[in-house]
């Protein structure tokens, strides 16, 4: 199974997810079979005045993940992830990366076909 990137506030699989995508603290790149994970810090995107979503999406694309789980993926990041053939699940909150991946493996999450809108929050 392909790796999954989950926006996260810390390197801890059982810590809180980060609802933000472009300005997430970091990403956990998780192998859903073994649940082994690797943390990528996103601090360099967080400080950008603009284009944080673009930079974060490039980073996730380069990590080799083929799916992204997050709270809010905006239009620019969405375009990049789509172009890179990465599937997107968003609208998730109040859970840990481990829980999100479990839901994903059980087929309980749906892929998004459109970016989040500003009125959806964050």
């Amino acid at each position, binding site marked *: 199974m392909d790796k999954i990137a989950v926006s996260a506030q810390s390197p801890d699989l059982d810590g809180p997810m980060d609802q933000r995508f472009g300005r997430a603290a970091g990403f956990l790149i998780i192998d859903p079979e073994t649940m082994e994970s690797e943390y990528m810090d996103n601090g360099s995107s967080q400080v950008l005045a603009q*284009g944080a979503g673009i930079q974060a999406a490039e980073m996730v*694309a*380069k990590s080799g993940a083929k799916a992204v789980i997050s709270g809010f993926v905006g239009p*620019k990041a969405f*375009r990049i992830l789509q*172009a890179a053939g990465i599937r997107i699940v968003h609208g998730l909150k109040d859970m840990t990366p481990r829980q999100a991946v479990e839901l994903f493996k059980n087929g309980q999450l749906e892929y998004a076909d459109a970016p989040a809108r500003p009125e959806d929050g964050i």
Partner: protein
Amino acid sequence: MKIAVASGKGGTGKTTVASSLFSVWPELSAAIDLDVEEPNLHIFLGPDPRRLKTVWLEVPELDEERCTYCGLCSQLCQFKAISIFDGVGLTFPEMCHACGGCFQICPAGALKVVQREIGSIHGNQRFLMGRLRVGEAMSPPLIRAVRREAERIFDPSMDLIIDAPPGVSCPAAAAVRDTDFILLVAEPTPFGCHDLKLAHQAFEPFGIPMGVAINRSGIGDDEIYNYCSGKGLEIMAEIPFDRAVAEAYSFGRIVARFSEKMGSIFRILADSIRRKVLQHQAK
């Protein structure tokens, strides 16, 4: 000479001051509204300005046949307007500041110039303004285009009174840069003082003489006066709060024309600004 009227945030009476200053200015002058997101100076100056031109930015479009995905353009672009990786190439025209760098660096000739409309310029013999296209975020290039247009159409001997966009970020900086004087408009409240400080600190590096006009004096406290005297910022006018004046303003009337007293406040202000600029130029 070019006089910018600016403020750390909106709603301080910047346009009141700019329109009044223009109406009493003793030399031949033109007014320029660079608050391109919400231009409203023309409401006071009438007649309605004519649309003079559309402003475009030259942004890149990727030719996927030619692109080698070397990534040079995307590394160069400091605005993240191009994303290139692993055979994927995307451009984000709405992020592009039209610096032109990517066109020059691309070794494969894979970037085509396309035009993107960001707004328009309107004006008449004594007035010029920019209007940002609805939904557009890229105001500094439009502000610079309006300023270039002013250089082109107004006689160099004319003085320019510039209504700058509120705030202290790129748009405001693009409007006050290369002027001869910055008049900061502020209210004498703690919030007003905070915004004045931000504006003063943001514009100080430009090395342009600055002064303060206090609007609605008589409300609030002394904080702003203490700040100005501590920093050697001259308070060049105090515009008293007056209900009748506020009402006249809301009907699009120029405050300096409202009463003899208001008129003389702005004539004195105009004179002190001109004196300061001439003194500075003599140095």
